[in-house]
């Protein structure tokens, strides 16, 4: 079974190959020979400390700042938007692994070795197989618990948002019922006259049903368009507020379909319910002032 090992450190060397790319890797040898080693800074750190690309900064692994080493800022990167770190200050730097080892004097040791398997489902079995061969090391499957844990937060938030949405839909339905009751009430006399002429209840109900479908459908589509127009503003506000590239609102085809599937039947039901409160009366009582 082929295995591919990716060495990663905490945040500092994360995605080194992805970030620096082949070109940077190719020029790495030149840089380390001539001048201080390079690092990348996060956009947030660059702005907060008023740094600029090309500037030489001192980095220390000690909170008191002991034994700093100079590094040249080779570039800026946008930290991967991480919902789990919303609100956190993304003041980060990325170093080449040898530089980090040198900085932290960790003597060619790392905190962890991440192993990516062709089939992640075999992670637990792989851990059990490898553990006895690496005495004194902890070998653990990271996909199940951690990923599930990461997803669990969003599953919980998803449920929370759904609960809020349910309450909002209930409130909106009541509002809708109030509106349709008023609309129907305004037609009281007209309906009474139609009934006196000879229109059957079902005929009038069908008419109101058709009207309800048109109103509910138009309302639903208007709501979706409004949401689509607003999502840009909402995202921009929260991206500014949290200084992140995360998207907070996404109006997807699925969301549109669900919204329409919920709102149109609710609108039609409200229309029918309010119409029935009128049609159950006798015609003569409807047409009296």
């Amino acid at each position, binding site marked *: 079974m082929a295995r591919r090992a990716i060495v990663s450190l905490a945040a500092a060397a994360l995605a080194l190959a992805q970030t620096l790319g082949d070109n940077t890797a190719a020029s790495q040898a030149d840089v380390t020979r001539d001048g201080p080693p390079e690092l990348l800074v996060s956009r947030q750190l660059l702005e907060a400390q008023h740094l600029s690309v090309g500037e030489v900064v001192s980095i220390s692994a000690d909170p008191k700042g002991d034994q700093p080493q100079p590094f040249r800022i080779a570039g800026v990167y946008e930290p991967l938007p991480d919902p789990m770190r919303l609100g956190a200050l993304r003041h980060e730097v990325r170093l080449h692994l040898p530089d980090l080892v040198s900085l932290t004097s960790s003597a060619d040791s*790392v905190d962890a070795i991440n192993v990516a398997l062709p089939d992640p489902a075999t992670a637990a079995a792989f851990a059990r197989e490898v553990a006895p061969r690496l005495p004194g090391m902890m070998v653990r499957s990271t996909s199940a618990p951690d990923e599930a844990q990461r997803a669990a937060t969003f599953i919980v938030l998803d449920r929370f948002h759904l609960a*809020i949405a349910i309450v*909002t839909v209930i409130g*909106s339905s009541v509002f809708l019922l109030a509106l349709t009751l008023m609309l129907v009430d305004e037609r009281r006399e007209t309906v009474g006259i139609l009934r006196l002429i000879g229109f059957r209840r079902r005929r009038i109900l069908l008419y109101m049903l058709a009207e309800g479908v048109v109103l509910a459908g138009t309302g639903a589509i208007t709501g979706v368009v409004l949401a689509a127009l607003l999502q840009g503003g909402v995202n921009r506000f929260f991206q500014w507020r*949290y200084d992140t590239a995360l998207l907070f609102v996404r109006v997807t085809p699925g969301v549109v379909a669900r919204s329409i599937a919920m709102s149109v039947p609710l609108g039609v039901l409200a229309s029918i319910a309010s119409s029935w409160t009128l049609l159950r009366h006798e015609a003569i009582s409807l047409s009296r002032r």
Partner: protein
Amino acid sequence: MSTATRSLAFAARSLLRQPGRAGVGILGIAAVGALLFDMLLLSRGLVVSFRELLDSVGFDVRILSSDSLPMGGARLANASQIARDLAALPEVAEAIPIRVIDAEAVPAVGFALMAIDGDFRAGRAGRAGRDGGYEGSEGLVINQRLADALKVKAGDTIRVRVSCVSGRAPLPPSPFPVAGVGEFPFDDGAQLTASTSWARLRSACGGEGDDADMLLVASREGHGADAAVRAIRRARPDLHPATNEEIVARMQQGSFSYFRQISAVLSTITLLFGFLLITVLLTVSVNQRLAEIAAVRALGFSRGRVAADVLWQSALLVGSGGLLAVPLGFALSLWLDRILKAMPGVPTSIHFFVFEPRALALHATLLVVTALAAAMYPIRLVAALPIAETLRNEVV
């Protein structure tokens, strides 16, 4: 009967002539009012609950290595000496280092091992001993989930491998007697946690490991947390003390901010919704009764009188709905709280929705403002109603 009472009675009768409409209006306000109430509870719920949790442990100051959140920064070296230095300050009653490391019970049950020093009573600092309390210093107090996972009880011995230093291989397992099964207030619903004494952990680490994640400090009675913090800063400027209040403020800036934001957004939406509902209800009601309003104006009702009628109708609708909203909101908050508490990493003793009288007062105030605002347009309609023209139009 005073003018206000007359107006109120008249407004009630006006609403009752359309009971369906009034009922729906009240229900609508109740639904959005419940959500508004919950959002007001949520806006400070985490802050209040977290503060209570911090205070309940019995320490009002925490010493960190930087101005970050607890357990988030580098460790404090020579923690035992720091604790002795701080305990000598007149403003400090007690100072205890605390450290949490990864451990593994053989065969392969990982858990968080908390080392905490000092002579403390069972029940403080997360070491509540349900099995009669912890007396000795050699064993572990484990939580129920860990006891269930390992199928052990007090008196049993487990073999534990600890990772004393990051970057170094964990040491071979050593035996730890289980001294008791307790509750740790900062545990979430899935956490496996155990605690032992500082000395026992150092022994398990071969005499090393005098680094603490933080120090817990209790201020001396009569001095207070702020005085303790000032004294610590004077004595040890290299340390970063923070009162519980400051810790909570940092959490508010970071982790809690999402809930504050959503609380603000949903509160605004619910108020807008309530405002629209009542405005529409009252405006349609007024438009349907223009001739009647013109007639009572012709009979001698003043502008203020008919405006008061509309205002009272708004107050009755919003007031009745608002009253219903409180018990509804309580019930809803229990449901929402249960949903959110399932989030990993959230201590089980934390609540997202916490009742405070100020939330109720703010709820009432916001509803009053909504009732007033919603009545403005229909009031304008009735106050500006041209009596003669309306009567003429009615005949035509």
